[in-house]
């Protein structure tokens, strides 16, 4: 059966089965990544544009590696080279890319809604690699993959997401995705970093008291304190943030013995995570998440571009 989606923009358009298919496809791609020559010809001939209109190192690198391992032709378009700095409109830029006859546009933009606009304008496959404070679906997929890998299920898991919920595009995709998969989601943040309408985000509950919910959590998802988005000073100091919302060594005893710690990276040691937690051999799955990023992006590229077999043995 062909994959029923053309784009990966709004994860809430995906069913639990479709998300599971992506995760299982990702799992199969592990084998490719463990070969000596880590490349298969699956997407040979496909042209993919990485349109990163906002600085990004990790996400773009992860996509590029995924593309190269599937033998796609990829073009990096963005950063200081973007036409937008020359005054070209987004529409004109997209139409120019379409004239190159590309097959897929992967877009990161600081403005919400841009991936959908590009999808409507271009007619080619689009993956949202993060739009403003809105959504970041491949991040959600890699988070799900890591949780699934370590917990073996989603149904009934208690997931706590801690930190800057209101400015987080990670939350915009992760929370709906966790709900689709049957997990319970609690968001934990100072009121100044909660969105205006938590229910719209899909979380089951919200609190500002980390200690009270920590004992129930199977997964503690720590968001990065985005220092660049904190001009409004939503909390008095990084020190106090760490005291109230940081995952410190002192909080270890409050956690379930098998609770895991996730983080989308890059981490701010001593702010949201103490080194004890960031490097915790049993709890921290942060580097697994990075690897999962390659796997789920390979899976998404493969499924969206219409792979008809598993592609691995081709």
């Amino acid at each position, binding site marked *: 059966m062909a994959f029923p989606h053309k784009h990966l923009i709004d994860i809430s358009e995906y069913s639990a089965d479709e998300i599971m298919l992506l995760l299982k496809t990702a799992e199969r791609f592990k084998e490719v990544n463990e070969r000596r020559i880590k490349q298969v010809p699956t997407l040979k001939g496909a042209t993919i544009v990485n349109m990163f209109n906002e600085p990004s190192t990790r996400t773009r690198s992860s996509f590029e590696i995924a593309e190269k391992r599937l033998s796609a032709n990829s073009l990096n378009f963005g950063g200081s080279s973007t036409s937008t700095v020359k005054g070209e409109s987004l529409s004109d830029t997209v139409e120019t890319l379409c004239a190159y006859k590309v097959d897929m546009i992967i877009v990161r933009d600081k*403005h*919400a*809604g841009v991936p959908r606009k590009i999808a409507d304008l271009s007619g080619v496959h689009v993956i949202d690699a993060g739009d403003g404070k809105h959504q970041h679906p491949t991040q959600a997929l890699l988070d799900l993959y890591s949780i699934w890998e370590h917990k073996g299920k989603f149904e009934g898991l208690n997931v706590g997401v801690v930190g800057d919920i209101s400015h987080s595009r990670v939350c915009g995709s992760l929370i709906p995705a966790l709900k689709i998969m049957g997990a319970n989601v609690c968001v934990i943040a100072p009121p100044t970093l909660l969105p*205006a*309408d*938590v229910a719209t985000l899909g979380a089951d509950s919200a609190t500002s008291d980390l200690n009270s919910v920590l004992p129930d959590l199977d997964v503690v998802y720590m968001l990065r304190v985005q220092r660049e988005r904190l001009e409004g000073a939503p909390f008095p100091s990084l020190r106090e943030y760490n005291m109230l919302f940081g995952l410190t060594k002192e909080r270890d005893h409050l956690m379930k013995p098998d609770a895991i710690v996730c983080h989308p990276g890059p981490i701010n040691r001593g702010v949201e995570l103490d080194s004890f937690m960031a490097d915790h051999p049993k709890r921290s799955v942060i580097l697994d998440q990075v690897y999962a990023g390659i796997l789920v992006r390979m899976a998404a590229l493969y499924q969206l571009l219409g792979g008809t077999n598993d592609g691995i043995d081709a």
Partner: protein
Amino acid sequence: MALMLKNARVIDPQVELDEVIDLLVRDGRIVEVGKNLSMEKGEEVDLSGKILVPGLVDMHVHLREPGFEQKEDIASGTRAAAHGGFTAVCAMPNTNPVIDNAVGVEYVKARATQVGKCRVIVSGACTKNLEGEVLSEMGDMIAHGAKAFTDDGHGVQDSGMMRRVLDYASQFDRVVMVHCQDNSLVGEGQVNEGVASTRLGMFGWPAEGEELEIARDIALCRLTGCPLHIQHITTARGVEMVRAAKAEGLPVTCEVTPHHMFLTEDDIDDTYPTSLKVNPPLRTKADAKALIEGVADGTIDAIVTDHAPHTDWEKDREFELSPFGMIGLETSLGLVLTNLVNSGVIDYARMIELMAIAPRAILREDPVRIEAGSIADFTVIDPDKKWNVSRDNFYSKAGNSGFLGFDLVGCATDVYVGGYATLRDGKIVE
């Protein structure tokens, strides 16, 4: 030359008129109102099946001239107004340069006389260059014809300065019109704070950012006695505050736009339609309902469009980069007829109060009544005409309407200004 308008249903609550009757007009004024009128020489127009009302006035319009003629100019904006059934509009002063002195007032008046298709009532800025820091020369602007004052688009942020504006303006018989927006709360807000801002992942523009300034300005109205007009009110609590101020006897009036009544934040879907990016933002269903109740019960005095034209290339952008505002002159009457009058929420008399009588009174314009001696400004309405909102039919330069594709019933077919037709059978008379 004489003009005879025959067989229209003529409605004017000011003179308790609602019957099929004839009007004789000469030299820009009504000469006679009565049955089976005749005249020796002149033009006769049969308006059977039509409704004739005192000329409609939109007291909140951005004509964009001088300075932003790519968006709209006085020629195109007044044609859009006439096409929408209006005989007069009040032009906002946030042009480039800002209309904050007598020269600017004279410029807009002169252009309107040269190229306009409706009367243009000029409003001046309260503070120089809309900066909220220094009083503008209101007295001189009044001497040159300004009818009202506003820092529309900004709002005077400093409460002490706002008090000074109202104190100073209170010596003239003129209204100060206020755009209520507390910038420290609104910040970079793009859409209503709450469900929409969370769902769309953008900064919220909270209702409180508007309500706080409404409350402040009502308090300052009480303090200074200056007539106050709240522009484009959007929230249920804002309407409640105006209701209380009126009950107290304060000289407070307010206006509402069709888009805040007939669209809500729920209409901003994940295609991020920039034509629905307006300031103040589209609010909740409950707010829209409260606005319609305020229109019906008399709390809200006027329906205005806040006609805010922008070029395609400005609006065809990322939502957060696109400018605020939508056009409205050519859809306002149809929307009001379809959603309020035809559905029985208000009657024609109330619609005329909202769109003709109150705007003139608030702006200290001479009233237009359907009686001998009155100025001959009329709007003729076909109440049964079914039409579809299409950009192709706009006279405005802009297409940033949030109502494209809507099916409406009722529109203006003919408009007379000072006895001269500006619109005939739905087409501008050049």
